[in-house]
């Protein structure tokens, strides 16, 4: 166990816990307007203060965590679900036309930053949290495909894989039985990193209005709403910002800690 792992796990589980608890309890109804109590700084009644409609910021942050986590988690799921099989296939058929097609496809998707994908989708289908999930998810696919293929390629040259081939095992079976378990650690670590990047990306998309739409609370939207009031109510901007920072920092520390704990030799692509 190391310090990063403990600190990261604590911060991350704190945020996840807040999101889970928000399903059954929040200090106030997160959407309840209370104009007389608007723009209060943090105080005993409203721990994180209130916004310009008098809504309780603490409750909104708790519910907002749900949105962030859901979007980022599903986006990682999309990335793993499509990227890992693609990467395993490309490595199993290394050098073939299939490998070439998969890798060229990856390069192509890499040329579309998630914001651009979100712009395209929104332009066609209108705004919504689903867009953010799809945009970030599509962006994650080549990330996982590349890292899986890279790690799998070096494994395919290892002698224990050759021994398995001499024992008559086919590419699919070897990929599942020998390759996947040996890249799993790497994928867990990369997954944590992509999770944190997903939180950041979701916040950015919501901020510009391409993500979750009102009334669904989201940290990015809260920041967008705060923008015009930052001069006289800075807590409106500070608190959602801190929520994002704590979550992302926690996940990054967790990723680093997991990497050191699982296998110090793992290299993670971070971009």
């Amino acid at each position, binding site marked *: 166990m190391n310090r990063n792992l403990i600190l990261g796990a604590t911060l991350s589980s704190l945020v996840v816990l807040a999101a889970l608890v928000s399903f059954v309890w929040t200090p106030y109804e997160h959407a309840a307007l209370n104009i007389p109590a608007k723009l209060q700084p943090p105080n005993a009644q409203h721990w994180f203060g209130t916004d310009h409609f008098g809504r309780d910021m603490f409750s909104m942050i708790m519910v907002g965590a749900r949105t962030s986590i859901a979007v980022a988690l599903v986006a990682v799921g999309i990335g793993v679900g499509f990227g890992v099989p693609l990467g395993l296939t490309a490595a199993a058929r290394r050098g073939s036309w299939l490998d070439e097609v998969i890798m060229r496809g990856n390069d192509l998707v890499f040329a579309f930053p998630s914001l*651009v994908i979100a712009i395209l989708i929104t*332009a066609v289908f209108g705004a919504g949290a689903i867009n953010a999930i799809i945009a970030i998810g599509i962006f994650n696919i080549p990330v996982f495909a590349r890292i899986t293929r890279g790690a799998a390629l070096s494994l395919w040259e290892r002698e224990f894989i050759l021994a398995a081939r001499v024992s008559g095992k086919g590419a699919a079976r070897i990929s599942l039985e020998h390759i996947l378990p040996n890249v799993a650690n790497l994928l867990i670590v990369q997954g944590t990193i992509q999770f944190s990047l997903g939180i950041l990306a979701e916040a950015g998309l919501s901020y510009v209005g391409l993500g979750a739409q009102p009334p669904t609370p989201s940290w990015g939207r809260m920041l967008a709403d705060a923008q015009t009031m930052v001069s006289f109510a800075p807590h409106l901007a500070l608190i959602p910002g801190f929520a994002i920072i704590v979550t992302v920092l926690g996940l990054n520390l967790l990723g680093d800690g997991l990497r050191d704990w699982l296998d110090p030799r793992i290299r993670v692509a971070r971009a």
Partner: protein
Amino acid sequence: MSQVSPVSLLAERSCWTRSASARNVALMLRYALKRLISLMISLAVASVVIFAVIEVAPGDPASFMLGVNAQEDTLAALRAELGLDVSKVQRYFNWVGGMLVGEFGTSYTYRTPVAQMIADRLWVSLPLALYALALSTLIAFPAGIYAAARRGKAGDLTVMGATQLGIAVPNFWVAMMLVLIFAINLRWFNAGGFAGWDNGFWTGLHSLTLPAIALALPQAAILARVMRSSLLDILGEDFMRTARAKGLSRRQALWRHGVRNALIPVLTIIGLQFSFLLAGSIIIEQVFYLPGLGRLVFQAISARDLIVVESVVMLLVFAVITVNFLVDLAYAAVDPRLRGRT
């Protein structure tokens, strides 16, 4: 080496590098040509994808522009004016062919040439992204090298702690904080808006400074970490030990043999970062009310001005692919092993 002037140094070296450098140039050109072909293919495929996605959009731009009560013959006239009265394949080629000669079509809402609109906005977004890239590199390189050289010591831990935080901060939030501190409280900068390049280079640069810093800080944190870990990897290589065995001090070995090798992975990240910065600048423009591509594209989305969206997206993808092409060329310049390869 320091006592020899660069000119004489070049002259002396050329006696044994001339024939070989001709070969290296030939290898470089071949490599560049190959990358150029793959760039063309990527662009072609990307344009098809973008066009196809936009084509899925329901509704007819002409009736959207003229409202539901428009006369059929007015609609037909507008469709003809917008080039919508031909087959999809024909329209694709018209679009791509137009872009090749700088014709991006006519905006559905403004009825002005899209090319002109984009060009105006590009003069904000592109300088912003480049400014941010320069800043992040300027911050990250020294920080990364410093941290690697002082591995495990207090300086390293401080830099790494700061980068850990930098990675976790959303750039638009940094932007809001910068506005709060430097524009609202200290009044060193305007809280938003763009002074334009017509009032002089420095005035323009001044109004892009806060946005550029906001964009650059999180990227610098990432880049510094990559620089550090890449250098540390290189420090473990056999040839670094060889360099030390020659009599180079730790610092000399780091600078002469470490940094250039460490640049290879760093270049990848710089290439990736450019696309993040371009995308990021679209968000940051919202914070500072900058009249850049971001504003254009968001207005276009709400007005369903799809031709503008299509063109801006294509332009962004073009920029990303082109930068990756340049990174590939930079690779070959840094790493001679790549030149002979396919």
